[in-house]
């Protein structure tokens, strides 16, 4: 285990931008990518790791500060407090022992943003070729924000958006440009 004195640093260290909507990098979030399909113990593993059901196609199941998102027919993204990852990995490994799966810590491979405010969708509509009006409650949309891959969903009156870590500065730049005061397309 690591030295408890060493704190993880997210890609942008919690950078914020205030425009016609607010943008904020959230800081470290625990994330596990899980590849699995048609496993009898999948539900048990997800429950043990994050306390939710296995989400349906393109849905996210949220339980407090934990969640499980459907990413593809054999891929899930588990979200949780950063410190809970190794415990969750252990729980998955135990629940799926002997069954073909892959679970890996990707907390540090990602950056997480919150876009908040009444016009939050109009920040995303400038970047993503996704029909936000048709985004169902609890739906995860994996798509493109300008030139990079992202995933987002509606949560707590705003959007949570996940990108790769190395392009966090680019994504922050995009979101800030899109949220500039005076540029709300209405």
């Amino acid at each position, binding site marked *: 285990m690591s030295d408890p004195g060493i704190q993880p640093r997210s890609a942008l260290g919690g950078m914020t931008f205030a425009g016609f909507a607010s943008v904020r990098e959230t800081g470290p979030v625990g994330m596990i990518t899980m590849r699995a399909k048609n496993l009898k113990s999948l539900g048990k593993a997800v429950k043990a790791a994050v306390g939710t059901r296995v989400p349906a196609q393109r849905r996210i199941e949220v339980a407090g500060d934990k969640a499980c998102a459907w990413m593809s027919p054999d891929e899930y993204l588990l979200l949780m407090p950063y410190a809970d990852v190794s415990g969750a990995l252990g729980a998955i490994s135990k629940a799926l022992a002997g069954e073909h799966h892959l679970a890996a810590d990707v907390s540090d491979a990602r950056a997480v943003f919150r876009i908040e405010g009444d016009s939050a969708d109009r920040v995303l509509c400038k970047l993503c070729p996704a029909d936000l009006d048709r985004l169902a409650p609890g739906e995860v949309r994996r*798509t493109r924000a300008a030139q990079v891959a992202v995933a987002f969903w509606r949560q707590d009156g705003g959007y949570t958006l996940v990108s790769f870590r190395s392009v966090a500065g680019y994504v922050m730049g995009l979101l800030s440009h899109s949220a500039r005061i005076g540029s709300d397309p209405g």
Partner: protein
Amino acid sequence: MLTLECPCCGVMADETELSPGYEAHLKRFGPGASPEEFEAYMFARKNPKGVHFERWRHAYGCGKWFLAARCTATLEVFGTYPAQVSEPPPEIIATIKARRPDWEGFK
């Protein structure tokens, strides 16, 4: 700027979410294959004007490859289907035949 419905995640995807993989249903030839077989596998492409079967990857979405049947002349899409098949499924064939009665068929 096509739209194709990804059969793996159900999203009606903008072409900019996809990356192209060219002709579908190629048969791989490895060691032991004749030069003609290898040439057919590596290089010979139908490139038709009309009904065509293609590979697409939902690169910015769920990451899965899928296959699409469409008309290269009118851009009409006859259907998309999972990649784990060696030839187009019957319902796709039926759709094409209904819309293109004089289509010569797959292969």
